[in-house]
């Protein structure tokens, strides 16, 4: 799991994210739902909404098996070194982010205390070197930017999966501290390679990284574009204009695309998809998502291969978007229609019906 946003709104009008997730989760021998790894890209509310509500935090011994809805166990928790950074006026954290940091600290401390790799449910992986040296003695649970990993939940599955960590890249010349420390700027960007037979399915998970990151990555890898190749690209920052441009759409008369940033995001393989995890894209007055950004992405992969999650399969009733990673590249799966009776039942709960 790369991130989650599980709200508590009424579900009659939109997708029940929690239920859809739980329908797909495996359960362990104790019947507890689990995920092998949770990689939090950065600490914005829309990337960890529902974290405290849905996931088990603390040691496994404290797991409650009698809850109506069982909490999801995270076997291995991944985060940038920013989990050590406390909430402050200039760096405000939502409650879920605070809970996430606390859990991350608990897990990392176990490793610091015992100097042995923690067991499932206590394991943690830190991405990036801490500037104050806190990661110096944690090499066993720490990856640097530019590293390739083949282990997930401490299982080496290099024949199946590997991940190349592209960002958060180091502070650039002329980049001020405020910009560098911005939560989006600190997003973890990973290119996953998932092998199926002879085919390498490439997924570029971009989180909320913006123009500077993409422009810099192009500079870094333009002679090694394999590092930026993708079969599926997650349109950065929910299809934000600012991932492709330094200019403001509302304030600049003729906002320009940053060509290098676009090149970094244009390393598509044949038949590749770009997915915008965003609200419905229409009109240029909102950003993200931005219709102008969408146009740029459509120019890369074509209209049919650009999918907005909240418009899938249609605007009225969004459903989960799933890909089957096959030996011939990703295959978009059809949407399973639900029982019309349960849909009707849910719909009936939307308002009160007076009876005479």
């Amino acid at each position, binding site marked *: 799991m790369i991130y989650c946003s599980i709200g508590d709104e009424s579900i009659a009008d939109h997708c029940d994210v929690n239920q859809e997730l739980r329908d797909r989760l495996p359960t362990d021998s104790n019947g507890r739902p689990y995920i092998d790894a949770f990689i939090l890209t950065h600490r914005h509310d829309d990337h960890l909404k529902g974290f405290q509500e849905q996931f088990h935090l603390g040691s496994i011994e404290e797991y409650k098996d009698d809850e109506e809805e069982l909490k999801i166990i995270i076997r291995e928790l991944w985060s940038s070194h920013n989990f050590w950074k406390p909430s402050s006026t200039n760096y405000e954290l939502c409650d879920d982010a605070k809970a996430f940091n606390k859990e991350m600290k608990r897990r990392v401390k176990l490793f610091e205390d015992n100097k042995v790799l923690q067991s499932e449910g206590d394991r943690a992986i830190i991405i990036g070197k801490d500037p104050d040296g806190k990661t110096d003695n944690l090499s066993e649970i720490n990856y640097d930017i530019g590293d390739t990993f083949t282990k997930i939940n401490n299982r080496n599955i290099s024949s199946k999966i590997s991940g190349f960590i592209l960002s958060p890249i180091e502070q650039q010349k002329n980049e001020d501290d405020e910009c560098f420390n911005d939560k989006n700027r600190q997003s973890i960007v990973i290119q996953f390679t998932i092998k199926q037979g002879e085919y390498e399915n490439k997924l570029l998970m971009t989180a909320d990284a913006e123009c500077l990151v993409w422009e810099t990555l192009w500079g870094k890898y333009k002679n090694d574009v394999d590092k930026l190749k993708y*079969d599926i690209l997650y349109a950065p920052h929910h299809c934000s204009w600012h991932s492709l441009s330094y200019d403001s759409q509302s304030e600049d008369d003729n906002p320009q695309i940053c060509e290098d940033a676009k090149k970094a995001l244009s390393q598509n393989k*044949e038949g590749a998809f770009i997915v915008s995890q965003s609200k419905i894209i229409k009109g240029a007055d909102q950003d993200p998502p931005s219709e102008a950004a969408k146009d740029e992405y459509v120019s890369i992969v074509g209209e*049919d291969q650009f999918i907005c999650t909240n418009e899938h399969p249609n605007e009225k009733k969004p459903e989960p978007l799933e890909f*089957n990673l*096959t030996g*011939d*590249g990703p*295959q978009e799966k059809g949407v399973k*229609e639900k*029982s019309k009776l349960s849909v009707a039942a849910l719909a009936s709960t939307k308002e009160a019906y007076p009876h005479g």
Partner: protein
Amino acid sequence: MDEFWLKKAKKYIQEHNAFEDVSELTTSAENITISATVSVGLPSKFIKAGITDIGVKNKEEVSFIFTDQFPLVAPNILLRNDFPRCFPHINPSEYNVSPCIYEGNISELLQQSEWMNGLLNQLVDWLEKAASNDLMNYEQGWAPMRNDHFSGYILYDPSEVLDAFREKNSLFVYRKFDYEDRNTIIIVNSLFGPEKRKNAHALFVSTTDIIATYCPNPITNLAELYKYAISVGIQDLKKIVEEIDLKNIEENKLFVILAVERPINLISSNCKFEFLNFVIHKSEHRRKKKRELKRTLPECKVGMLSHISDRSPELLKQLSGTKTKLNDKKSIALVGCGSLGSKIGIHLARNGNNPFLCIDPDIFMPHNNARHALTLTWSQNKAELLSVSINSIVNVKPRVIAEPALKADFTGSRIIIETTASLSVRNFLMSRTDLPSIVSGALYGKGRYGLLLLENKSKTTRLIDIWANLYYASLSNALLRTILFFSDTNSVQVGQSCSSQTMIVDDARISLMAATMSLKIQNVLENGLSKNGEILFIKYDDNYSLTSELVSVPEYIEVNSIDKRDWKVRLSQSAHNQMKDIMHHKGANETGGVLLGSVFLYAKTVVVTGIIPSPPDSIEKPTLFVLGTEGLEKTIKDIEKKTNGKVTYLGTWHSHPSGGTASQTDHNTYERLLFVRNYEPTVCLIVSQDEIILV
């Protein structure tokens, strides 16, 4: 046909996001068709072309063929005639491709709350898997070769064939096979009535390499079979087939079975070999100049047969979901093949347990039909009849002893299951210490109660101890007394001159008890007996259910006498602990009391199960204990009355707190007690800190 349902079905197809261009209802004499186009997500490599390398399109035409039984029966789903047929999970059909979209019956799927959406979702999923060439689900197992031209059934044991390949160190095995020809369907090997038997031979041929390509059965004649054999690495099939043909020239059929090794186990199987079964319809018998001409010509028709597993312990184990231990050479001895024993025996056999030893001296009489597991019966010995039925279930013939168990040899048995309700059989079993572990079951109180007694693993707690323990427990348990000591048999007239001592109870109630007992015995057969002896109490409740309780029996020890006597004395650990507690309580003074327990005459065994504290007029001194008499007679009478005399005064015990052997006084008391008791079995025990002495 009901328009309502058809319109509803059409609406579901129209509203499903993967379907478009839904046609109007097209009516013919027998059915109604709705056609539609399905959008199929293709892997990214094929999106531009709109078709996969195997030939699945991004828009596939599909027809739903409804009969008048819809919606109780699902529509037949057909794809275009030129849809690629090289996938598994396609139903046999000669025209149009019929995808097998669901593991079970799709009419059952239609009855779920998703209704038509269940089918439509499965169809989309199936097409997506075809597009990504994932229909062979390696986690599920290898899908067997599809047979579009079904010719009949063939029965044999695949594992036995594989063993034969290994034993003979050959890739060819050839043997006699019988069959019945029912015009279009061939039934091979014991699936048919014996009177219709025709002779033939079967040739089993194994591949040497693992064959990982799936292909549906394309074979309709012998030339095609030879070609297919060569494609899976079997080069010599033609030569061998012709040799066998000439050796058995009178036979009209020849069965050829190819054992093809696959990369993974077949679906729902633990075997990697897929057996492809063919029947060759040999050509006319001809001679030329008195020389036999071969009848296996390339144009001979070849049909494909479906394999059916023969009944076997493995099959029954698999179906019952038990962990039955197979290949145990030692038998399960069923002592008693009456109503309870036959039902337990059949339950165990249906789990694949074997071999059995059936013991019963009785003849099955008409009145036995009221309660028994067997149905096709006649007046033959019950053990023999049960063995026929067990053999017909598990395919392993039980050994039979059509005599009383009293003379049986149990050396080849691993367990004895006794259900005779015969006291003499019980006494015989209790008298023998050299027998395998015994489980003894019986019904009481007109079938309201059942008792299953189980010896322990090490056979240190024996049936005799369990019975003594039950008798002693009944002292404080009125229900147990009712169960054990009140006769519930009736004399039932079963003919003008015969009557039978039996219990009036109906078959269903015995079945309930037998089923529960069988579950416990199955557990024992899988995991062994417990560390302690056990008693399973079963009670039939008025609400048509059973309640049961499993009680652990305390350990018993055998007390050795100084001089070897005929009688054995066994002592319950709990009675011994009680004596030691009293001894410690009395400090330096000797103390003692009365021993209670049961006497088993035939087994020449006395089992001490409890004690009565010393009466108040007893004398307790450091070197002397005199057992008083106050109130003792009444207490003993009450105990005997309550237990039908099964629990009685066996003798005395007294303590030697500082140790030491029996004194002259002790010997004199023992002699006096023997005399008073008219030399009936009598026990005098001396209990000290570390030992128990039998005077």
